[in-house]
């Protein structure tokens, strides 16, 4: 946009303008002279792969982290943002990818957090009602946040950002935790906000969402802005190529004609029941055989497969029934930050982590460092060295490290719990490729994925876990979806 005059006019200046933003984390250059302009009243998609620097750039705009160099203009005026408080005062709101709500407090209390003076729940509820009329985002002000579902919590986050009269709204991967239909609903509402004059930055790695809803687009790759302009000027292929720096990998065609002759049974569950510590029956009469050299997919509604997978991975003991498991077993936990990895530990300590509860004696760190180095190489984990802390890896590299550790030594079985969750295209396809290779090498693989297409793509057969029992289904996305939803419908009808 051309500068209208020497005196910036609030109506013509971009809502947010960043120039020459550079940021280092240690020796890593996260952002390199990045410029970004958000036009007033538009939805601007900020695209990029994991670790490209999208969140970092927007956290600088929100005052959460300071840049090493560069200039931030809000409404045409240069601002120094020392904290989110400064940004909020200037009308910038940000919704973070991970919820920042207090579960024990009500919606109204969460929205008023950070405010001053006396908390008045009626006034607060009124304020929320007005916001709801304006934005179409509805939530019950007196509901406890912990009692809300994920989509409702996401709405609370957005309302919280808007409650401070935000004119600029930054959404960091708002659909990552949502089911497809919920995601479309959310984005449509965000589009309405834009029509009402809010300027929105949508951080995402989902190209389709960006194409469908955004006016402008910018692509970050390895900390550099490689493309920016009006969405209508670019094709999906162009954007994808810019995000990845090359054409995206095509998915490997599957040879489905002959399902590999089932090898010997490796995992066996017979009539297994599980009752959790609060006395709730989570599994009922579950029997499952997994053979060497096959991938068995498990479809389940969000979160309900956790018990079965942990029983298969020897992390939980069945309340009843027979279980046969191989000695050497790998487990990829869905929550890699807290369960798969010890975030504050180094990479080599995280490699030493495997089965540490079953070992004894001395730890030979030099040998483990060598092992880590070779795993990093084989699985292409991008890191500055084995002494790096696991939490400083990007999500995709964290998952590669977990996979490398669990697949090391060719285990007899591997249990993978939503292993590609939150990962970009390249990292996901690499994870899938490694699971396939493990299968081909004779490993028995159990895969749970919240993405039914992924299950159909990877698995040799799929079972649906519904209300704690297993149901056989054909290897077809529609059939699996129906089997899942039938259960869901029945549950909600009751």
């Amino acid at each position, binding site marked *: 946009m051309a500068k209208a005059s020497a005196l910036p006019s609030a109506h013509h200046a971009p809502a947010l303008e960043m120039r020459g933003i550079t940021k280092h984390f240690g020796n890593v250059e996260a952002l390199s002279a990045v410029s970004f302009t958000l036009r007033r009243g538009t939805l601007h998609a900020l695209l990029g792969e994991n670790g490209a620097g*999208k969140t*970092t750039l927007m956290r600088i705009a929100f005052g959460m982290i300071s840049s090493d160099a560069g200039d931030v203009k809000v409404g045409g005026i240069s601002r120094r943002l020392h904290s989110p408080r400064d940004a909020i005062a200037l009308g910038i709101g940000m919704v973070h990818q991970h919820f920042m709500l207090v579960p024990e407090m009500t919606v109204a209390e969460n929205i008023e957090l950070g405010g001053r003076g006396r908390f008045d729940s009626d006034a607060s509820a009124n304020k929320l009602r007005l916001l709801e009329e304006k934005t179409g985002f509805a939530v019950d002000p007196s509901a406890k946040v912990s009692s809300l579902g994920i989509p409702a919590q996401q709405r609370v986050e957005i309302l919280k950002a808007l409650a401070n009269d935000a004119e600029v709204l930054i959404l960091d991967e708002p659909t990552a935790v949502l089911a497809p239909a919920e995601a479309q609903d959310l984005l449509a509402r965000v589009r309405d906000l834009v029509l009402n004059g809010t300027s929105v930055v949508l951080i995402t790695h989902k190209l389709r969402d960006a194409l469908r809803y955004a006016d402008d687009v910018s692509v970050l790759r390895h900390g550099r802005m490689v493309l920016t302009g009006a969405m209508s000027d670019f094709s999906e292929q162009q954007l994808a190529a810019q995000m990845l720096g090359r054409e995206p990998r095509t998915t490997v065609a599957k040879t489905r004609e002959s399902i590999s002759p089932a090898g010997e049974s490796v995992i066996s569950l017979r009539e297994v029941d599980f009752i959790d510590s609060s006395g709730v029956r989570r599994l009922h009469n579950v029997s499952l055989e997994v053979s060497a050299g096959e991938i068995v997919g498990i479809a389940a509604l969000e979160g309900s497969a956790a018990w079965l997978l942990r029983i298969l991975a020897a992390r939980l003991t069945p309340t009843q029934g027979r279980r046969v498991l191989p000695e050497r077993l790998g487990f990829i*936990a869905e929550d890699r930050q807290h369960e798969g990895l010890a975030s504050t530990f180094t990479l080599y300590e995280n490699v030493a982590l495997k089965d540490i509860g079953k070992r004894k004696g001395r730890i030979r760190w030099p040998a483990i460092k060598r092992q880590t180095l070779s795993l990093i190489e084989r699985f292409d984990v991008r890191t500055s060295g084995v002494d790096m802390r696991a939490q400083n890896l990007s999500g995709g590299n964290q998952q590669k490290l977990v996979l490398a550790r669990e697949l090391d030594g060719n285990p007899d079985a591997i249990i993978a719990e939503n292993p590609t969750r939150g990962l970009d295209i390249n990292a996901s396809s690499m994870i899938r490729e490694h699971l396939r290779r493990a299968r081909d090498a004779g490993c028995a693989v159990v895969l749970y994925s919240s993405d039914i297409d992924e299950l159909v793509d990877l698995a040799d057969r799929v079972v649906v876990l519904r209300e704690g029992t297993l149901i056989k289904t054909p290897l077809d996305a529609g059939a699996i979806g129906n089997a899942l939803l039938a259960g869901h419908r029945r549950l909600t009808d009751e």
Partner: protein
Amino acid sequence: MAALALLGDMLVRATPLILAGLAVAVAFKGGVLNIGAEGQLLIGACTSTAVSLKFGSTLGPLTIIVALIIGMLAGALWAAIAAELRNRFHVLEVISTIMLNFVALYLISFLVRGPLQEPTRIYPQTSTIAPFTQLPVILEGTRLHIGFILAIAAGLIAWWVVRNTVAGFRLRLTGANPRAARIAGMVNVERTTRNVFLISGALAGLAGAIEVHGVTFALYENISPGYGYTAIAVALLAGLNPAWVIASGILFGALEAGASALQRDAGVPSTLVWVVEAAVILTVLGTESYRSRRSRQFVAPEFAAAQGSS
């Protein structure tokens, strides 16, 4: 030689501080906020005294070894109470261990006025333990006893074990990332936690047993001038590293040994030493928190999480 005596005094003071400091460091490192080193130390002191008084004549020269072992076991048992409360009923050990400190203190009050009181029944203390049950002095002309060597050995062993063994790694892991320990490492977190309590209690109990057998030779109420609490400062100053606990224990030993000299020779109230101690701790913790704040932009988990998808 006044200087030699003073050096000895300093190391004598440092001995229980190192051992109790190790107890706290090991516990904190393992995710156990054991504030009860004081109570475990007192229990170690009283049980070991009882052993030496009652069985000294039958055990002979073995008495001292048995007494120290019993002191350790008793300290571990005292900590085990808090461990069970935490594992079974989710009682915070910060609360339970502090309360157990008072139980131990008043238990000693009772014992030195009752079952263990010296025969004349005048003073609230036990009779003096026999010379052959006392820890030998290692530096002529001072009170420095062999317990100091034991404390240093304990520090070095703890340092090596935490660094180089599976058990030590499990301890650090359970302390820092209990969920990862359980899921990725298949660690029995409850058992590890219990072991941390036991080891911590044993170290504190040993501190108490050594104090009686090397310094006081009798049990009385104020046998510990709050060693178990100063130990928290010792451990924090050492950054929970067992090897550094030796150094920080000696520093605090010097400060406390110097306190009485300060008052006697310079007329400065000995309480000033506490001011110095507290200032040291605040400075260290302040620097620490400043440093971690500076680097948090890089290491905060939620940042790494967001980075994972940015």
